[in-house]
């Protein structure tokens, strides 16, 4: 069989490719997707986490543990004023919304976590569950470059670390 197969590679636990951190990272992203705004009430966070976990059908190991960990992680992160400011009620935004570009006739689809439309211009936000790394900066810069071509103006970017809470602005 010599054909060149295009197949997705889903991470396998048997090969040590799936870990708890990766899973919780996905869940945290989803919870922030559902968190429309945050005024400091625990119920707002809990509801968003519940909604995120509802998208994981059973059987999900340690559902309750994930719920508690996520609520705790997000609540700690949202104590950071600059992060909390991103969840002020009334902000207009796009969440998990893809953008599309053609690279040498191949379609590429990228999905920034959030684009918030501030009066001074759009802000591209990337959430990271773990400590921020330089690779995250490179990824966000690429988003900023591509999105600047769409808006025909430079965009601002910010990396938000959740565990530990961190906030780092990234320039294109």
């Amino acid at each position, binding site marked *: 069989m010599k054909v060149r197969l295009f197949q*997705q590679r889903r991470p396998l636990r048997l090969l040590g490719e799936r870990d708890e951190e990766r899973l919780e990272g996905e869940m945290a992203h989803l919870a922030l997707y559902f968190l429309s705004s945050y005024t400091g009430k625990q119920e707002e966070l809990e509801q968003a986490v519940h*909604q995120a976990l509802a998208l994981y*059908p059973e*059987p*999900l190991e340690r559902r309750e543990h994930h719920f508690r960990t996520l609520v705790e992680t997000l609540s700690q992160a949202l104590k950071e004023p600059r992060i909390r400011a991103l969840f002020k009620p009334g902000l207009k935004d796009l969440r998990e919304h893809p*953008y599309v570009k053609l690279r040498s006739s191949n379609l590429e689809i990228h999905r920034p976590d959030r684009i918030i439309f501030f009066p001074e211009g759009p802000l591209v936000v990337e959430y990271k569950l773990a400590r921020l790394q330089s690779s995250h900066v490179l990824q966000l810069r690429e988003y900023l470059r591509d999105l600047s071509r769409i808006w025909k103006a430079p965009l601002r970017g910010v990396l938000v670390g959740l565990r530990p809470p961190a906030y780092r602005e990234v320039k294109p």
Partner: protein
Amino acid sequence: MKRALFIPPEAGFLKTLARWFKEHHPVREWPEATFIFPTRRAGLYFQYYLAQELKAPFLPPRIYTLGDFINEWAARLDPRPLIPAAERAWWLYRLAQRPPLFGSLSESFDRFLPWGLKLSEVLEELEKEEVEPRDLPYPPEDLPPAAQELLAHLAQIGEDYRRLREEKDFTTPAERSRLLAKKLGEVLPPGKYYFCGFAALSQTEKKILGHLLEAGGEVFFEAPMEERPEFLEDILNFLHLRPEAFPSSKFRPPRITFRVAADVHQECENLARLLPRSVKAPDEVLILLPIASHLLPLLYSLPSEVPLNITLGYPLRRSLPAAFLLHLIDLYEKRLAQRYPATLYLAFLKHPYLRTRLPDSPKALRRIETRLREHGSPYLTLEEIEALTENPALKEMHEEFLRPFETLKTPRQFAQLLYQVLDQALEPFKENLKTAQDNQDLLARHFLWTLENEILPLFTTSPLADEPLKPETLFRLFRELLAGAKAPFEGEPLQGLQVMGLLETRLLCFRRVIVLDANEGALPSPEEINPLLPEGLRPALGLPPRSRQEVLERFHFFRLIRAAREVDIFYLSVTEPSPRKPPLVRSRYVERLLWEKEQRQRRLLGPEALNHLPLTLKPPRWETGLPKGKAEKEALEKLLQEREISASFLETYLDCAAKFYFRYLLGLRPPERISEYDPAELGELIHRVLELYFKPYQGRYYSPAEEDPEALLEIFRREFRRHPLYHRLGPERRLFISRTAEFRLRRYLARLKEFPPFQIVKIEEEVRYTHPQWGLRFYGRIDRIDRFDQKEVILDYKTGGRIRSLSLKRLKALLEEPLDAPPTLEGLRHLKERMPDLQLMLYLFLWQQAEEAVYIHLAAGKGSELFKPLLYQPPFSSVREGFSPAEIQKLRQETFPKLLESLLNHLLEAPAFFVPEPPPRCRYCDYRYACPLRRPC
């Protein structure tokens, strides 16, 4: 009244939609729009077409599948998680255990599971159609009893099940759909919603669409305006939509070529010739694969380096990891009192995952196999195997893979064990799987993913995880789940040549479509009928008629064909060799396409309309025999001079001369096989028992009427217990064999009681004779010689099989026939026909003083067929018009010796060792692997 736009398939639905969207909406507003498609692929292709239109980066509209849309919005309203079908069946089982319902069904979960899965489907459908479950107090009598029992209590089950979902905090896909049908309007913000390309919708889905339309949505269907299918008409009526044709130009129908193949390999080989050298666009070529299991022959036929994207569900149970686990379970399950079946055990060791685990494999494997074969026992304990083979690696494997099954108690332990087994078995392959450079590894990852994520977690995290269940229940549950599971081969849909199943092609269009296996049974696929919900029962439950799977498949197939420019349809035209299988006929879809072509051309199509793929098969030219050269002739002459000629020696030649060649000329021993039961062994035992029984009477009279059969049976029981066969057989088989043998021996003695007292002359007598003219030595071992009224009779016990013998009429005819046999295949056939009971003929030839020879056919179906005399003499035959003494003399002095002489001449003079026509049962021949002339019979 809102409109519903109909885009004809020929226009290319997604491409047309993308163009329309671009023309009607400024790019900056695109992110505010939401599109809902039936599949993710359709969404991806839609984005591809938008990109083609725009040629610049852009923010596309938000794109959902209907399932994802329902999940997201329902989760906002009610964040209870979904549970999978097997878990639903478990909860229904728990409900079914409550009295007074379902006494028989709820005895065990493995018994309930198949019904639980079907019941869950019925409840889901009722929920989706917003119909309250109601009891059917008098269900149709032709339904299975289990179905009747469940349907009679459906209202109660439905109510209990709803309460249980709330209590246990879980939901189901249908409940989410129903929730959204009710409440979506309350939460959905106004916006531009586009509901695109759906076919049949349930009641709740129609209501969801209604909410979207109220919020400012539009709906698009893919169908010709003038040929709207009934299920789309139903949606239009329900939502009061006005159908409107999408403006489009006229299209040419696709060029369709029908290609008729003999088998799947010929299909694939010819398909490969149709492919372009490179594929530039994702909508260029599609290979439609209605039978997923034909994927591998297809992949092996395609030219190397063809970029290929596969999108279909492949049956998980056909994968290597699943087969490995099933084999392991099978091995464990087929044990008899801690003893493992040796053949299955060996096959397990040879599984690709394990065979490299043994140091010095495959030599080590061969050694183990030899030891087990030499030991001969078909069932062995692990300790016995370890002691016999003296291979420490085996002990390790037993500890890892087999012994942990012995302590299995709960589903959680079972899943952990299977995971651990896979983890250990895959250890040598993990690096390859990680890099997945090889296509096999790439596909294996999908199988492992499905096992890891969809099968095993059901045992570890569902509410039944810690329920004590019998291993058989766990195994059955595993098999049931595996049977329904498909590994989703998900590719990069916008790359290369596309290979898809029919449902995966929804809304897509391709310039060229190549369809494989367009036969009935594949296109359309066999319809699954829920035994709890036959079509006739739907109105009684308040359900609308079902949009039949076939109607939907037909719709999807013809839209795909119409949307293409060029179509190649392969189908198989072949007569199945098995009479049980119906002949393969081309699909009804092919018939319709041919009929449409005839209508267009206003003439009947001739044979030129079908392209029969040339089949250049070289059928095997069956040689009639293994050629006999000088060396073989010399070896034969030597053999006849040196050995004594026995009945089995000559019978082997008559049966198949090629077999004779392997056994006697080459001296090949039949292979030793490990089997629990060998009929020949039982035959030897019965001979021994009869010898022991009659021995005391040798030289004396035996009076059948005065003998107690218990004495014979007692000898049998004693000898059987001492025999190795007794210890090797499983308890059921041992009992069966013992009872059968006792019955036959008792019947024999009972028949003997009809005879007057007779003298037993010889028992197990070896007789030899050297023919004065031929110079050949003959040998026989006669089971018994009796004397009846001064006439000696040779007796031969037969313990199995069918006995062939000549009728009196045929024997009489022999007296008048020329008995020479030419040294040809035909000559051999003549001899075989004339000497079916060669053994008795030879015995009379060797023991001239006997006047009759008789088979005692202990295994005869009827008691009246117990004795088969060769010469039809009394007291074994009661025929009136028997042989005269002169005829008997001629038979014995002329006919039998002449036949024997002809046979020996044939043996020496025939130019070949012939395989007779019709061929013998080559499949069961000991020399089938050595014989180049074996027939596929």
